[in-house]
Every structure is written in structure tokens, then in C-alpha cells.
């Protein structure tokens, strides 16, 4: 085990375009015009509106009601240090705010200046982005602020006439999360061996199978394997399976041409090493049963910086790929069912 544990920081980011459906489309289209609405269902006004009555599961229908822009805080908290996902970059409150004309609260920010300005019962009003910046998303309201005039909102509780067709039917959403993983003992052993130009496996003392790359356990016997079970395996073997990936240009895809990823059964091993690249031949010529050998990166150029727990068994930048040895192919049927 290494003296210091390698950590990996990775960011999980993916954009979504969500379709809104009729209820949320109506809400969003009105919001973009600076009007907050709720829906009357089961004798109460739910704002922001939901598609189904939470009590009865009945369709909430189209009895729209104008609510706000002022409302009353019923419960609140204070965020002294906002995260990157919060819309404001300075301390602010979150609150349950029952808008004038509504019977249920909505959750939103309160930009109150200081924690001491917050209280249950405080009157607040919505502060919108500039009209040109509103896209019909809940954060079109930058935050609620203490109401200058605590009197009831004008027009709150009155019916809202929805247009025949809504302007806004979709919403951009995103996921942006940062993770910090650390290399497990087995990942650390694997990465260290790669830097030395060696492939290692772990031999199970119970079933005698050799698993590559190390997993820290025998996945047949369900027993723990450690450093004492490590054995060296050959850097040559037979292609046991492959797929040709035709890249779709999704967000983050850097490949443009079809490419092969294959599984290789190494000599002396009982489990395949997966997701390997074949060099020198076109994708269409890759076959199950081919003898291949590892092409190592020159020692000075090897890197295992991207070998984390998620990519165990990958060669990182230590292995350039695999090339044909020229030996005659093995019968494919001996290899096709070898998965592990």
C-alpha cells in the first residue's frame, strides 16, 4: 500500500432538457411574464401548482389562480455560506412562503441581509430578474425580499386566464456535482505495477482462479484477497470478445470514428481484462481468438493518474494498446463464454 493515498476529483455534469407538461408549462409561461400562479383543487389553492392533488391524486385541472407576489413566511432557515449550487453568492435565507391567494407554501430564497431580519410571520415579496432574462424557471424569481408594504398583494386570489398555447414547454436543468474518491488498496497495487510495466492478478486460495486486475476479493468464492495473493500474469493473451463502438456525439464525447474495445484472456489468468484497444488493424478485422500482446508506453511516458476505483483493470496511460503476435487464432468457441 502506498504511503499516501491517491485521491481523484471528478465532476458529474450532465445537462437535461425537461419537458414540462401542461400544468408546469402554464406555470412557467406565466412566471416568465412576472405572474406567479397556483391551481385550485379540493377546495385549496396549491402554489406552485402540481399536476395531481396530493390528497386525492385527482387531476388538478385548470382552475388557475393569481398568487403573490407578496407572501408570508411560516418557517425559515439561514444559509451563512452558500454552495456553488445556490443562486446567491452571499448569505441568505430559505423559507416556506405562503403567497397571498395560496393555501400551501412554496420554498424559495429570502434575501434579507441578515439572519436577524428573518422571522415567522414576516411579509416578503418576489424580486424578479429583468424581463428579458426570465425563462420561466423558478429562479426567474431571484429571491424574496422583505416587503416594503405589508398589505395584501393586489389581484391575489383572482382567476388567471391561461393562454390557448403556452410559450414555454421545456426547461433546462443540470447536474453539477463534485466527488473526491480515493484509491483503494487494490487499485493502488494495480497502478503501481502498471508503472513498472507489469500486470498483476490475485489468485484465490480456495478456487485457485486468478482474477485480473485485482479486485481485493474472489468474486466466485466471496472471500477477501490481499497483497499475499498477488501474482504476476503474462502481458499477452487471447481476445475473448469485442465490440465496435460507433460514437454518438453526446455531451462530452470526444471520439468521432468507430473504435474497438475488446476483452482479453491473459495467459495464466481466469478472468478477462476488459475495455482494451487493439492497435495497427482496422476495427473490422478484430476477431475472437486472436493472440495479442501488450504494447507498453515508454517508461518515461507512463502515467496512472486516471486509474481510479471506477476504472480498475484499465491500463491508463501506461498501456498504449495491444497488437497481434502473428500466432494462429485459437478457436473462438473456447473463449466466447469467458466473461469474468
Amino acid at each position: 500500500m502506498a504511503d499516501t493515498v491517491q485521491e481523484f476529483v471528478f465532476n458529474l455534469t450532465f445537462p437535461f432538457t425537461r419537458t414540462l407538461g401542461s400544468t408546469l408549462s402554464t406555470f412557467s409561461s406565466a412566471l416568465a411574464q412576472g405572474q406567479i400562479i397556483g391551481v385550485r383543487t379540493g377546495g385549496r389553492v396549491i402554489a406552485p401548482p402540481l399536476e395531481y392533488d396530493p390528497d386525492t391524486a385527482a387531476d388538478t385541472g385548470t382552475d388557475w389562480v393569481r398568487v403573490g407576489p407578496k407572501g408570508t413566511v411560516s418557517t425559515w432557515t439561514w444559509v451563512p455560506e452558500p454552495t456553488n449550487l445556490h443562486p446567491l453568492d452571499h448569505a441568505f435565507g430559505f423559507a416556506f412562503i405562503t403567497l397571498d391567494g395560496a393555501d400551501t407554501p412554496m420554498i424559495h430564497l429570502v434575501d434579507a441581509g441578515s439572519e436577524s431580519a428573518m422571522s415567522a410571520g414576516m411579509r416578503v415579496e418576489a424580486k424578479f430578474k429583468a424581463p428579458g432574462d426570465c425563462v420561466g424557471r423558478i429562479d426567474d424569481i431571484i429571491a424574496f425580499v422583505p416587503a416594503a408594504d405589508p398589505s395584501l398583494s393586489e389581484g391575489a386570489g383572482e382567476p388567471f386566464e391561461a393562454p390557448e398555447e403556452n410559450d414555454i414547454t421545456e426547461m433546462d436543468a443540470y447536474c453539477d456535482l463534485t466527488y473526491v474518491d480515493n484509491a483503494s488498496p487494490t487499485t493502488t497495487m494495480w497502478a503501481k505495477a502498471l508503472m513498472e510495466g507489469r500486470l498483476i492478478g490475485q489468485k484465490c486460495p480456495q478456487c485457485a482462479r486468478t482474477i485480473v486486475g485485482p479486485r481485493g476479493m474472489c468474486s466466485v468464492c466471496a472471500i477477501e484477497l490481499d497483497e499475499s495473493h498477488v501474482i504476476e500474469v503474462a502481458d499477452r493473451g487471447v481476445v475473448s470478445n469485442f465490440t465496435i463502438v460507433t460514437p454518438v456525439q453526446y455531451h462530452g464525447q470526444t471520439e468521432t470514428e468507430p473504435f474497438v474495445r475488446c476483452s482479453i484472456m491473459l495467459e495464466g489468468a481466469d478472468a478477462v481484462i476488459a475495455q482494451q484497444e487493439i492497435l495497427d488493424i482496422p476495427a473490422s478485422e478484430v476477431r475472437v481468438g486472436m493472440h495479442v500482446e501488450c504494447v507498453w508506453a515508454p517508461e518515461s511516458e507512463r502515467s496512472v493518474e486516471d486509474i481510479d476505483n471506477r476504472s480498475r483493470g484499465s491500463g491508463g496511460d501506461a498501456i498504449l494498446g495491444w497488437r497481434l503476435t502473428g500466432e494462429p487464432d485459437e478457436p473462438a468457441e473456447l473463449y466466447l463464454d469467458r466473461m469474468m
Partner: protein
Amino acid sequence: MAPTENDIAIVGFAQTAPDRRTQLTEADLVLHATRAVMADIGLDKSEIGFTVSGSCDYLSGQAFSFVQNTDAYGMVPAINESHVEMDGAWALYEAFVRLLQGDIDVAMAVGVGKNSNSDPSTLYTIEFDPYYLTPLGTDTWSLAAMQARALLESGKATERDFAEVVVRNRANAKSNPYAQVSGDFSIDELLAADYVRNPLRLHDLPPTTDQAAAIILARGKRAYDLCDRPAWITGIDHRIEAHLPTVRKDITTSVSTRLAAEGAGAGKAPIEVAEVHAPFGFQELIVAESLGLDASTEINPSGGALASHAVMVAGIIRIGEAANQITKNGKNRTLAHATSGPCLQQNLVCVMEGDQ
């Protein structure tokens, strides 16, 4: 009791030592927990008819982590396996239902979570309503804090009451060898700390933990092969409320907990020990009231979820601890509670009894 073929008991429970930051993977943690529970009761993996786990990819940030975790089961030859993206307590519920089919007599439920990879102040934004809450960065601490504030405003509790829950659980945790957080604290000392989310302070928040736990269930007389005094599950139920906390009528109480407790028959006889899953300390007050517990019930002798809180594991540990009270500590009737979602959205209640 003389068990019928439809009676199901907990016969084994093991957990890994909770860790603020483990170097192990989730699969490693699963292996350690499942090996420990099988060794403890002398069970071979070939005797397990059904295996089910609860975990969540988003915690460790690894896609299909639950598939890699199955390496730890030894799936050659193929096993009967399932997974829930929920706390292991709900995996246990599935195992219970699976055993009721009557064709197998032993099942294993697992919970695993490597929580230290992610940031709890941002991660759970993606758990919430994607239209009304996620774009605001609404975080789980803020939602819990607003529930706590509502409880204060209702007059049902004070900030001293919140601190008392923490003091009591941390003191109880001293005798729990699997506690990550424990010790003697005073209420005044705790109340002197700054707010993280008013009115919650750091000690009111769940610890961040990497951990796994495994429970073995057995049906009918098979239970006695594996355990001298099985913890028979006499009732288990779970209920869920609306995902938007704002449309619940009163977040200072837990309707779903009350209904689950009724469904599990909690009130039919006194409860000696209850293990309550309250990620935020003050939530213990809401759950205890909704369960209908009174002073005769000892709550959280383990230190509860404030002693360790791996999301996906803390609930099944409550069940394991409450079962241990029967299998190892001579108690006759105990209750375990597990929760999931913001502001106690979903709740499970499991009532267990020992032979008398």
C-alpha cells in the same frame, strides 16, 4: 412462540466499523459485512436463497456501483439477487416479502454507502423536485432546518430539547463499539456552537460515514438452526408522503410514521426498546411522538443515527440493533424505524418479538 412456516425472523446482523473516510470501495465494505454476518451464525453462502441490497450510485459517484458490489456475494453459480436504490431497511422489507413466498428459507439484506466521496451540502439537491427545488440549490440541511424551525414555532420543542437529544444519543453511543461519534457533552456546551442552518448546529446534523451492514433472515423453524433466540418480525410496514414538503399539512408530525406503526402493530403491546432513525437529532422527537412511544420505551441505546450515519445503511442498522436487543440482550419486544427523503418523507417500522 411456536413459529409457523410464514413467520420470519432476524437471525444475524453485522456491520463494518463506521469510518469518516475509508480507503475501501463499496464492494469491499459489502464483503466485510456479509462475511462477518455469515461467520457469526455459521452460514454458508450457498444456503442463502435471496440476496438484496440498498445503495445509491450518487453517493460514491460511481455508475452501476451496485453491480460491482455484487462481486462480494460470490455469484458463481448464479444467485437470486435484487437491489433497491434505498436504505437497506427497504432491502430487508423486500427480503421479508420474498421469504413469504415460501420456497426459500434464508435471505440476506444489505445496506452499503460510501458517503465520504460526495458533499452532503450539495448532493441531495438532485434528490428533490427538479422543477421547484433543484434549480434553487435547495439542500437537505436547509429543508431539515425549516422542519426544525416549524417545530420550534409550534411550541412542541425548544432548542434545549434538540440539544438534549444529541447529548443523550452521544452518551449512549459510548457503549456502542460501532459508534463513530460518542462522548459526554453538556447541553449548554452544544448550544454555544454556531448555526450551520438556523436553528440547527453541526451536532444536530448527521455524521458523514462510510459503512455497510448485513442482516440474515430465516423463515419458520429454520431460524433455530441459526440463532438460539430469533427476533421474530411480528409486523413491518412502510409509508410515503408527498415529495414536496410544502404540500404536507403539518411537517411537525409524521403521518407516514404513525400509519406505518399502526400497520406494523406497534401499539398492541409495550415496546421495551426502540431504535429510531433520525438523521437530524430533533427528528427523533417527531418520530417518537408519531410512533406513540412514551417514557417506558428506551430510545436508541446504540446512540442512533447520530452515532454513525451512512446514507443507505443507517436504517438497516436500526433494525439490526433492535434485533440484537432480542437475540443477544434478553429483551422481548422491540421496534426499529427507518426513514428516507427530505423532512422524514418516507418511514418504515419493524416490530420484533422474542420467544418467551
